[in-house]
């Protein structure tokens, strides 16, 4: 599972450009599922047919990134970004478009900055991608407006139990959902890999109509704010303290029965867990729970520090325990108790 996570994190798949990730997952899922297909929007479905409740595990394939807006006269590229703090992109290496043209996001050298410039945070509109082009015409030989831009960070294991990578949000969920597909559960089971979550849960809104789930389990990477200056009630989650169970996020209030069932699952199976203490931030649950005539939805997340940056950090044990928690929930048929 960890090897797959590494491969998944290293693939580039900014919202709307999930093809590489989808191909990788599809190739593995087809050996486990009865049926694998892709819908019009690009959501990937793996169906393991069974009797009983229609249960869906859901993870999003897309990651935050940038898109080329156009080339300037001097060959630098202007870009737009979604969900990325401009402070984290300066001096980062990126790759652009289907051919993965290398580039770097530059800014004025420290020698040339005034005191005022030095203390000012550059916005995405003041930053440019340098691909080594000599002018606009040269740049447009290699890239086109609308090409996607991804960070190049490679997945690495470090410390006793940690990993750092881009796109842990939500390749952790993708890897877990893939692993669940290997098992047999006493239900009609779908693993769904959605597109464009980071832009506003767009893929999930369509996917839910194709599956019509009764119970959905959302597998996510979530924010960890266990930083020195933050007080306990502002941590949201802590890296290494176990997978996080949600009672609420910006788009969902989890039904009490589901919240309790997830906590009970963890306790019964002896899996460490924490409660996700934040009430902000959205997940595909927000689109899924209220679609059609309503669906019971719960969330299991892997805490990630520095989320939505080129290098986020998570605990390998949290990741493995998140899988165990999802697996135990399904194995013990908790989906029958939450409706």
């Amino acid at each position, binding site marked *: 599972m960890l090897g797959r996570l590494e491969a998944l994190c290293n693939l580039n798949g900014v919202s709307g450009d999930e093809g590489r990730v989808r191909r990788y997952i599809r190739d593995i899922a087809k050996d486990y599922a009865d049926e694998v297909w892709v819908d019009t929007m690009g959501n990937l479905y793996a169906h393991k047919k069974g009797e009983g409740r229609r249960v869906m595990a859901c993870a999003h394939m897309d990651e935050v990134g940038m898109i080329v807006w156009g080339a300037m006269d001097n060959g630098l590229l202007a870009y737009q970004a979604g969900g990325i703090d401009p402070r984290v992109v300066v001096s980062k290496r990126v790759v652009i478009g289907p051919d993965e043209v290398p580039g770097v996001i530059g800014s004025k050298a420290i020698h040339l900055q005034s005191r005022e410039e030095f203390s000012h945070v550059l916005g995405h509109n003041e930053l440019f991608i340098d691909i080594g082009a000599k002018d606009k015409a040269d740049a447009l030989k290699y890239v086109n407006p609308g090409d996607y831009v991804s960070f190049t960070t490679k997945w690495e294991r470090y410390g006793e139990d940690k990993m750092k990578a881009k796109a842990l949000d939500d390749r952790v969920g993708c890897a877990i959902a893939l692993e669940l597909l290997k098992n047999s559960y006493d239900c009609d089971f779908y693993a769904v890999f959605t597109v464009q979550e980071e832009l506003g849960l767009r893929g999930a809104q369509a996917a839910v109509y194709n599956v019509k789930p*009764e119970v959905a389990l959302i597998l996510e990477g979530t924010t960890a704010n266990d930083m020195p200056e933050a007080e*306990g*009630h*502002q*941590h949201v989650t802590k890296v290494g303290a176990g997978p996080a169970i949600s*009672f*609420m996020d910006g*788009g969902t*209030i*989890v*039904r*009490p029965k589901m*919240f309790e069932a997830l906590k009970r699952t963890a306790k019964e199976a002896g899996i460490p867990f924490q*409660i996700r*203490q*934040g*009430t*902000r931030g959205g997940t595909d649950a927000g689109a899924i*729970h*209220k*679609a*059609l*005539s*309503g*669906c*019971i939805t719960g969330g299991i997340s892997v805490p990630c520090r520095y989320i939505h940056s080129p290098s986020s950090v998570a605990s390998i044990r949290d990741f493995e325990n998140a899988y165990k928690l999802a697996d135990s929930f399904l194995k013990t048929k908790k989906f029958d108790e939450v*409706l």
Partner: protein
Amino acid sequence: MFDKDMLKSILAAYGPSGREQTVSDVIRSYVEPFADEVYNDTLGNLIAVKKGTSGKKVMLSAHMDQIGLIVVDIDEKGFLRVSNVGGVNPVVSVAREVKFENGTHGVTYFETEKHGAKDATMPELFVDIGATTREEAEAKVQIGDVAVYVTNFVEMGSRVSSGALDDRIACAAVVEAFRTMQNVHDVYAVFTVQEEVGLRGAGAAAYAIEPDLNISLDVTGTGDTPKCGRMSVKLGAGATVKVMDSSVIVPPVVRAFLAEAADGKNIRWQPEVLRAGGTDTGAVQRTRGGILSGCISIPTRYIHSPVETADMGDYEAAVQLVCAAVAKQELPHR
């Protein structure tokens, strides 16, 4: 004359967004004797059905949920940290008595080190439930539990003040109407969940019911208090027929239908344009291939505070208007 005891018990029932079971049970007890069928759906919406003869379906909807404070952390000294559920004003939430679903009471205050109460923010708020350690607090309250304001039911002539008038007063109005109405159409009285956090329950109910017409009942703001924002709606001038709010533009055919129903029975009404704030009306309108959807509101002052204030004449007008609307043979159509 209206059933004041019913109104008071619906107002007093615990029920923040996502935790509506208690208020659902209270409302169920009032509608069950008059309904052909009563059930809760997956999200917890309470639906009471009263059959008619026309073969058409009219949905009435009022939301059961109220705003609240959800526990996100419990510190070592037993203080609870909270986040808002719905549109909670942190300043209004300082120095309040609050209660939890299991009956635990507490009081709210804020971190006083940096500034006064007028600048209090949600992360600075805490709830004191009388516990001195984390363990003692956890024996009473868990992370994820939700507190609501404890409020009084105050009668001031024809006016009443209470927390949770938004939207329990409209739930009570739907119950009143449901008891007495002479409906020609099948009426689905839907008491919805999670309106305050983004109109999340009503759409799912409408999806399942597929009504020919939806009429939501909610509270709306007024423009009749000292130096408030401009708005034409006044307390005591009748129920409103909504023109628009931030979630919906009511189709003119639906507006005209409600206005005619009111005029036909000499019921006082006023048109309503609400600039900030959405209602279930909008969520239902955009369900499936589109559903004709309108809204009758009860003008209310000081919304989302523990002293929401309304006029019972407007309440009775809203009840009469619902009854008049569901008795009309001809429903609006495109």
